[in-house]
């Protein structure tokens, strides 16, 4: 099932903001359908990596290849068209629109009937609108949001809003979805549901998932591979059990024991 050639390949990526090197020489790849996690202490550069992949920032060095083709520095909407979707750390739903419309808006990039059709409203237009409506409805139903179809998305509870963001991202039919701290603000039960949801998304839609998350239970629980970042540098990579016992990772998170640092007396 896994392809020898990676779906997403980051090679030697460096991001510099003025004097600050947010990310240095980062190497990482994700295979088709893989569920990977990106962790690290606060400020390690995780969201910066996300923003590089999705085109919000441009890397100062290195390259980003998606399905073998370079995407670094391209405009975000073009990258989404290539097949990379994302959710945001602070929920960014379309506040004035209903739950349904939030998902419907994400179908825009696949539209075959554009402006002139919207005005003329011929048969092709109507057929496509009906198809989109049913697809969007199906997606919402799968994620148990169907009953909230027509309410303003801001009236949803926090957990539902996070789910809606994921549904919206899935509407773009991505091959890779980036989830930015999806468990933030959730209680343990919600987090368990989230873990099942992510695994479900990966299997049902056959897409790769890259997760940035702070909650270790979530990350260790579902990620097939984990990469650890500290001060913009990759300090470890491997499966959950390897990462749990990796000294460099422990040091990064917990700091150095003072007696250790002082050296043997």
């Amino acid at each position, binding site marked *: 099932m896994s392809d020898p050639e990676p779906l997403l390949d980051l090679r030697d990526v460096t991001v510099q903001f003025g004097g600050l090197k947010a990310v240095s020489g980062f190497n990482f790849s994700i295979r088709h359908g893989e569920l990977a996690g990106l962790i690290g202490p606060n400020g390690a550069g995780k*969201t910066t990596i996300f*923003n590089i992949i999705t085109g*919000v920032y441009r890397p100062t060095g290195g390259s980003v290849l998606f399905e073998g083709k370079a995407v670094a520095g391209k405009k975000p909407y073009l990258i989404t068209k290539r097949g990379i979707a994302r959710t*945001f*750390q602070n929920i960014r739903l379309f506040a004035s629109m209903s739950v349904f419309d939030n998902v419907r808006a994400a179908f825009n990039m696949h539209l075959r009937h554009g402006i002139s059709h919207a005005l003329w409203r011929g048969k092709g237009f109507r057929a496509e609108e009906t198809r989109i409506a049913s697809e969007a409805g199906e997606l919402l139903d799968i994620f148990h949001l169907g009953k909230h179809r027509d309410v303003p998305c801001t009236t949803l509870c926090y957990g539902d809003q996070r789910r809606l963001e994921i549904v919206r991202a899935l509407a773009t039919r991505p091959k890779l979805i980036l989830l930015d701290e999806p468990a933030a603000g959730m209680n343990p039960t919600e987090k368990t549901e989230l873990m099942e949801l992510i695994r479900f998304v990966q299997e049902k839609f056959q897409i790769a998932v890259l997760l940035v998350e702070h909650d270790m239970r979530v990350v260790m629980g579902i990620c097939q591979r984990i990469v650890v970042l500290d001060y913009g540098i990759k300090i470890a990579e491997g499966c959950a059990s390897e990462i749990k016992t990796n000294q460099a990772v422990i040091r990064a998170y917990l700091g150095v024991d003072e007696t250790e640092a002082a050296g043997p007396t």
Partner: protein
Amino acid sequence: MIYFLQQLINGLSLGAIYALIALGYTMVYGVLRFINFAHGDVFMIGAFAGLYIAPLVMKYSNGGPSWPGAFVVLVAAMAICAILGIVIEKLAYRPLRNRPRLTVLITAIGVSLFLENFGQYAFGVDPQYFPSLINNHSIAIPASFGLLSHLRIKVSQVLIFAVTMFLLLFLRFIVTKTKLGMAMRALSVNPVATSLMGVNNDVVISFTFGLGSALAGAAGILISIQQPSVDPLMGLQPGIKAFVAAVLGGIGNIPGAALGGVLLGVIETLFVAYSDQLHISSGYRDAVAFFLLIIILLFKPTGLLGRVEREKV
């Protein structure tokens, strides 16, 4: 060459006026991230304040020009404008502190329109003559300066330059050496953190408005000394142009506003002076500022001295 120098001097004097007004825009933007559309009209009110106060002051100098009288008028106008600026902020902008910026921008437009039209209603639409506060003769440059003696420099131009320099230095002193100034700078970077440090944001913002408006008032008096015709709509063009100057220098950046103002004044004056040779009608003079605005926003939107502000995603 002399012609060029003459135009340069004229441009500097115009630029100083723009700079004074631009400072108000930039300070308010730095502290509140909002363009105070009504600022140009405060400049106009300053001129009119001078118009009404001048006769009262000149009674003491037997109706003639006097330097102490001019000084009193200047300070009085600055004070009136400062109060006006603070009142406007309190009534129209403060209630909207948390609303989207566009809402406040529209309100500012409303305030601007109100000031202009109320001015027309109260002061009359026609231009009025501003009394001579000083003896504005041309300064005679001795022939020993050679070619330079052909330059025509008026007292008003020297005055404008001197007052502007003084106010700039005074402003710099406030911003860098006083606690209020430091609070202003802190507010422009992070309002929440600043208030958590025990600063009363409202007071600092009022102070900023007052300061910027006072400078605009000074500009109103200075320009009226040089060009003694005042009318309620006189703030429109200079207001917009001063805004362009602020953007040119980097909006939110105080030295930038001064630099932008001077640059704009010089470019505009040189344009008019050499427009024949460029085969462009000098009637396009007012478009020069907008043209510059578009260029700077296209190529360096943060302005000449400005910093890039990234939105956190």
